[in-house]
């Protein structure tokens, strides 16, 4: 209970950055905390409860976004009515960031959030996402390229893949 109370707020911020909605972020954190609860004795013994909780929350986000592996695929929005332009022109920088984050493929978004919000290393991010360090680098690079329009000091010229400083 103490762990859940102390970690919930931060995990919720991570989940929010990954899904763009506070209430849904709460759903993901609930999912993550339930998973932690189930495995608590083993985790506490190994001191890995926060890492596991983070992984569980990120997995909860990605599991449901992994569109090809779920027979429970949700329905999606009415794309005939959505207007990205309306959003991009009207919102402030933070909202623009969230909008651009939402446009990223889920694993690219996860890489950015884990690397620059959770401050995980490339190796830690790769371990959490179950992929190679090279994949983390390339996915992060692609994500940063997409995010460049929201970042005021970003270079105006196109950024080649792998041009990110690690």
């Amino acid at each position, binding site marked *: 209970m103490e762990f859940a109370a102390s970690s919930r707020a931060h995990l919720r911020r991570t989940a929010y950055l990954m899904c763009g909605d506070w209430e849904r972020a*709460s759903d993901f954190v609930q999912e993550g905390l339930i998973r932690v609860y189930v495995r608590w004795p083993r985790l506490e013994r190994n001191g890995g409860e926060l890492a596991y909780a983070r992984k569980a929350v990120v997995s909860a986000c990605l599991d449901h*976004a992994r569109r090809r592996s779920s027979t429970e695929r949700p329905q999606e929005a009415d794309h005939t009515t959505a207007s990205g332009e309306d959003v991009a022109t009207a919102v402030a920088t933070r909202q623009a960031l969230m909008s651009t984050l939402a446009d990223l493929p889920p694993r690219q978004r996860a890489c950015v959030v884990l690397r620059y*919000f959770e401050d995980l290393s490339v190796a830690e991010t790769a371990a959490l996402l179950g992929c190679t360090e090279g994949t983390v680098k390339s996915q992060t690079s692609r994500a940063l390229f997409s995010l460049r329009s929201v970042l005021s000091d970003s270079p105006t010229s196109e950024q080649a893949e792998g041009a990110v400083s690690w």
Partner: protein
Amino acid sequence: MVNELRELMREASASPPQDRTDLTAVLGRGRRRVRVRRVAIAGGTSLAAGAIALGSLAWTNPAPADLAAAGVPRPAGPTVRLTEATPAVEGQDYRELASHTNDDLDSDNGQYFDGVTDDGLVLFRDGPRSTQLYPRFALLDPATGEKDWLTEARDIGQSQLWAVELSEQRLVLVSPGEPVESGDDLAMALTAHVYDRASDTWDTLRWTGLPATDGPWGARVGPDGRLYVPVLATRGEVPEGGWPMGPDGEADDADAEGDTYDLWSVSLTEQRDVRDEGLRVGAFAFTQDALVWTDSQNGDAGRVHVRDLATGEETSFDPALGERCNLLGFSAAGDRIAMSQYCGTYEGGVRDDRVQVVTTDGDQVMTVQDSGVEGGQLVGGGDYLTMTAYDRATGGTYLYDFEEGRLLRLGDGTSAWNVAAGPAPGDQLLWSTPAGSKVELFGRSGATAHLGEIIR
């Protein structure tokens, strides 16, 4: 650049609204999976997945996907594209029996059609939502619009529910139940909530002899009235180094190894009556007189097996799925079987999605192939197929008439919220359409639930 990104992400997430989640409820009291809001058929987290999936796709081209140009292979047998559909005409192709609109599901949960009873009443669910923490159920008469509210189901709490039987005698809803430890996976003790219509009472069933499951969504009631439950046996392995990256920059898990399940069955009246059916399956379904299953699912399907429930005689055949196809959905009715598949992503992010229909004898009937089509369900005793499409140009709900060989489009929008799902008798079917105002993440703020009946 990355420092600014760090700062922006911290600022953007620095002022969260109050978290209404009750930690005690989450972790201690019930140990059950708590959903605070929006418990649609696919669930709150799945709804969020809709937003993520939406964000992950580049909706830059409103034209229908060009499968041939993208290099998508054609399936074996007759193929139908969504672009061949004609708009369904109300009063001519179908009649609408009931509908209900939720204008703003983005702010709070709403009301749902959770299925239709064999005698034609809609199982209407209200909540759970912020001002009503637990769901209320009613049987809605489509003819009059009147709702007969059921006695409160105290044991249901805020669990996600799936209707598996809505008969004239009882309503059977399954929920994940309490989480239990099972290796590295989250497993749950399946729970059923059974409403007896004659006595207006609810009963909650948990079977101590039933192994934990990875969720309630595979459970089905057989023709013998027992609940058949798949228990995870083997999970397909992720290749070493992870899935390869597809042309859209996403991990592409086409041609995956499938998962298998051991089939168990339980009585819906006696909690000690639990039976290991001694059968390993992938996906499974019942027709009126047969049990149909595959070797595996959520990956390679293997062979399709058909057991005659009267004689016990078994046959099997190769359904001839494409080489890279993952079986994601399975439906059987009459003498037909519908298999929804994902078969890879090609140039320009064009997906090879298929709903393939074969007979229980193994003959190919037809395959609907397009980018973003799925959820094939046989309705009308197997005479019709419904499916949902998500592509910008072709999004909507479709109905295929096997006898006429024609494809109808019931609506040209796909709702972010699935507010109508569950069993429906005869020629009736449920679907959702978008409603309400525009919102950033989900396209529209609400959704309309529809109950219709096919006009033959």
